[in-house]
């Protein structure tokens, strides 16, 4: 790793292990690294202190913000909005999160993905296909019947557990055993609890600190 590469990586905030190793060995790079990080630290703590996401009366109209996101504005009003964005975290967050780049679509969970074509269908259902194949093979090779059946059973259990529906089914069965009225009640109670409070990480920490102090 050369010094020029290291400095470039540090500037682009791509500090990998090899960059860090070089920065520790080379005194010049070490100085650059420390200075850069110090500046970043100071900048960050200052940004963090000043930021809060609250709307103010000076915030531009939503139509204007949407037009800014699509780059439909003339230069003067663009500059005006940028000037506002630099000082207003609420509007900056609007622009940041309402633009369609980097949407969290499939990766984060249960937004249904559209299945298109046989290939993706096969890719999605590999465990089921393998289980069926293993079961079929148990008839083809009677000598390895038990082995094949065991493989098929393991894969089958894996498929059943992987679906989140299995958990829901289990819950419903348990509730059903207890009596049907309690099912509805419990569901409503859960919903109420959920609406009442979203856990806030920062607040929780503060509460913990406070309880620590008390003890």
């Amino acid at each position, binding site marked *: 790793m050369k010094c020029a590469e290291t400095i470039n990586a540090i*500037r682009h*905030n791509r*500090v990998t292990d090899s960059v860090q190793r070089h920065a520790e060995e080379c005194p010049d790079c*070490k*100085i650059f*690294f*420390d*200075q*850069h*990080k*110090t*500046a*970043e*630290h*100071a*900048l*960050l703590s*200052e*940004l*963090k202190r000043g*930021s*809060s*996401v*609250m709307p103010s009366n000076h915030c531009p109209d*939503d*139509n204007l*913000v*949407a*037009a800014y*996101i*699509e780059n439909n504005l003339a230069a003067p009003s663009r500059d005006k909005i940028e*000037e506002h*964005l*630099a*000082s207003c*975290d609420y509007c*900056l*967050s*609007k*622009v*940041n*999160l*309402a*633009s*369609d780049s*980097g*949407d*969290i*679509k499939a990766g*984060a969970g249960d*937004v249904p993905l559209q299945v298109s074509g046989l290939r993706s269908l096969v890719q999605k259902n590999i465990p089921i296909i393998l289980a069926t194949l293993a079961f079929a093979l148990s008839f083809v090779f009677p000598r390895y019947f038990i082995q094949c059946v065991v493989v098929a059973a393991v894969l089958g259990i894996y498929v059943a557990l992987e679906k989140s529906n299995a958990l829901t089914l289990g819950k419903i069965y348990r509730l059903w055993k207890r009596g049907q009225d309690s099912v509805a009640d419990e569901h409503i109670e859960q919903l109420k609890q*959920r*609406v009442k*409070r*979203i*856990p*806030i*990480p*920062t607040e929780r920490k*503060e509460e913990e600190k406070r309880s620590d102090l008390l003890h």
Partner: protein
Amino acid sequence: MLTEKELIRACINKDQNAWTEFHARFNLLITSVVRKIFFSFGFELSGNVEDAVQYSYIALVENDFKRLRAFQGKSKFSTYLRVVVHNICLDYIRKSNPGLGTVKVVPLFYEPSYTPPLIDDIEKMEEQEYLRKAIEALPPQAKIVIKLFYSGKRMGEIAALLHVPLGTVESSINRSVEKIKRIIFKQLEKTGIKESRISSH
């Protein structure tokens, strides 16, 4: 197939079919925006997302479709909807957490893993407000770039967001950090705190 404007007009006129169409076209968009907001503000991705989506629909309808009527056609409707849902979602977060009157909703900044030496001295010096002045003196675009960059956006994404070339974003970040660096070390020399391993050339 209705155009966006026709669809919205039909929705405002309380056409049931139009609402079905609206749901089919925009539900995924609304869900993804809500999810993104929850994620970037550090809330857990749980059933709350569904509640917030429901809340968004109610907020779109309330006050005689005020939010839909306010659409002026300066942009695509989907972009406008994203902006509106962002506002509604932050409103939801604030409403469902009454304690937030004092605790502010703050976006997540990236946490530096490496603590450089002398940071304590610098934090002490921050009381002199020189750093805040320096940051305020940066041009508006540079400030936006820095804020986005340190809240975890990639440079390419920032360039796409602000409609500027990638090179502009890179040089903007470098220039700002260099500037802050110069100011800090000038101040360090002035106050007499200096250490050989971190001193400037």
